[in-house]
């Protein structure tokens, strides 16, 4: 077939290019710009090269925040993914109660982040919060503003409450797509409940679970609002996760250069971990797990 050459066709992609430029490329480049310069205000900039990157890489503060961040993401993934699958497996498959469960489970997903934070901040207070008061009355020493362990438990439980539904809904969609004949054949083959899960349900859910894990990883790695509202990063720096630290640095201390270098590295870390995760999963999938 003869190919028609018409350079005017480039105009057709122009709107997309403009959109992407304003929504992603230009802001990102601004950050890059900040990361290699120093400023003392008055729009005066001095070339700093890779200085900020070197400084951030040797900064213990960033490494500690990264550690806390990795721990947070690992813990919530380890809880939310199995719990979401468990919930999906035990949901009614059809009828009124199925729809009912779906609606109830979607509710936490519809609440704005800072409202979720506020809910838990009040819920956990020892003086007026239902949770804090009850725990205190039971003689359990719980105070998320002073106790590091209590603060971590609170933000983790909050995240689990907020996001497990998403995993459950995705897993449920995966389960619903399995034809009845598979379960019937498994019965005929006398497969145990575990084997039905391992050889039928899990392989069929793999695709959506991969999406769930990626989404939850990226979201939890960038989490800001909820822990900021509940603990403000404290006690001390105990719950200062990466983005909380970043905002403190950029807006609190107005260290634009280091903050820009920090955010670029932050972005690269997320990209790297997501890529590694995706590649590993796809390879496992090819091998048939």
């Amino acid at each position: 077939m003869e190919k028609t050459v018409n350079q005017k066709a480039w105009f057709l992609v122009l709107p997309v290019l403009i959109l992407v430029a304003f929504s992603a490329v230009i802001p990102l480049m601004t950050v890059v710009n900040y990361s290699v310069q120093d400023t003392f205000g008055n729009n005066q900039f001095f070339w700093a090269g890779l200085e900020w990157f070197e400084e951030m890489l040797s900064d213990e503060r960033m490494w500690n925040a990264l550690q806390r961040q990795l721990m947070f993401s690992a813990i919530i993934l380890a809880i939310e993914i199995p719990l979401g699958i468990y919930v999906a497996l035990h949901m009614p498959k059809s009828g009124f109660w199925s729809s009912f469960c779906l609606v109830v489970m979607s509710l936490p997903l519809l609440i704005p982040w800072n409202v979720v934070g506020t809910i838990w901040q009040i819920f956990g207070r020892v003086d007026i919060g239902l949770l804090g008061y009850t725990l205190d009355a039971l003689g359990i020493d719980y105070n998320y503003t002073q106790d590091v362990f209590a603060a971590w438990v609170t933000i983790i439980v909050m995240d689990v409450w907020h996001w497990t539904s998403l995993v459950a809904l995705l897993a449920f969609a995966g389960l619903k797509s399995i034809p009845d004949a598979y379960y019937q054949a498994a019965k005929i083959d006398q497969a145990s409940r575990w084997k039905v899960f391992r050889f039928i349900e899990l392989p069929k859910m793999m695709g959506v679970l991969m999406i769930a894990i990626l989404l939850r990883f990226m979201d939890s790695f960038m989490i800001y609002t909820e822990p900021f509202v509940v603990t403000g990063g404290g006690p001390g720096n105990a719950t200062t996760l990466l983005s909380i630290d970043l905002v403190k640095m950029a807006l609190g201390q107005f260290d634009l250069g280091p903050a820009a270098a920090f955010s670029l590295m932050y972005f690269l870390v997320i990209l790297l971990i997501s890529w590694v995760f995706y590649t590993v999963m796809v390879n496992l999938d090819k091998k048939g797990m």
Partner: protein
Amino acid sequence: MAKITLDNLAHSYLPNPASEDDFALKELNHDWVDGEAYALLGSSGCGKSTLLNIISGLLHPSQGRILFDGKDVTHAPTAERNIAQVFQFPVVYDTMTVHDNLAFPLRNRGRDETYVAERVQEIARMIGMEDMLHRKARGLGADQKQKISLGRGMVRKDVNALLFDEPLTVIDPHMKWELRTQLKKLHHDFGHTMIYVTHDQTEALTFADKVVVMYDGRVVQIGTPEELFERPEHTFVGYFIGSPGMNVIPAKVDGNRAYIDGTELTLAQGYGPLDGKVEIGVRPEFARLSQTEGLPVRVRRVEDVGRHKIIRAEFFGQDINIIAGEDDRISADMNRVSFDAAHVNVYANDWLVRGAA
């Protein structure tokens, strides 16, 4: 292996069936003789699969009992019935190898590995997949997947019955024939009770010792292929089996005479007074076209299908089919049709009426 008895069995998918129409499977009594190969034949939605799922325990009947060798298993779970079933669409465990797929039912029953390996080899040879045993089942074609499903159904030797729910739908025609032959051989060698659901009459007639024809939730006839052909118990059987099916012509019957639109036809047997809708049924194979003999007919079209000719004609305002030999000459002045009296059946309200000589 076991004799399977259905005792007053019926099933409705509705919680409170009120009338007979609510039943997907209408009341049924039948013994499936141990070691016979049955085909369950009928059009879609006639209750074949319902019946099959009740036998295997995937479905519990609304009424009646199922007995295996006299033991009531109506409410026993599938696992206890020791049944193998193959479904219409291939079910394979994607993440396992072909070998593990075939071994799965045996391993779940705790058979030792040497036995499993030996049995899997045997089955793999039977379904022609020996060289693929170590491949993952994922990514295989539909017909290969279905062969694995068939293999998994056949891998256990001690099953009470083997049930097939239209298993060859997704297989290409050549392989279909080969697998059917394998199934027949398996039946011959091991004598399992087999029930084979299909809507394809050729498949049913070539596979089974006995064909069970179902229509609208009811078993209308159980018989050998020959019986189904010669004496259809119900007009549906006549119409459904045969290509083309039986001609069913409204008539009045009085003694050993039938009147079609007032024209007389002599029957081989005599009949008492008949109620309701009376029809006579003649297979196209037993109708003959000629210039002189029989009742008037108008030929519309002749189809040559290779081994014989099918004549589509109009007979007292109704369509009928006549089969003529491949070498018979059909000429324009042939406008009479005669029937082989011994093969003219009489039906009242769709059911066969037996006459007296």
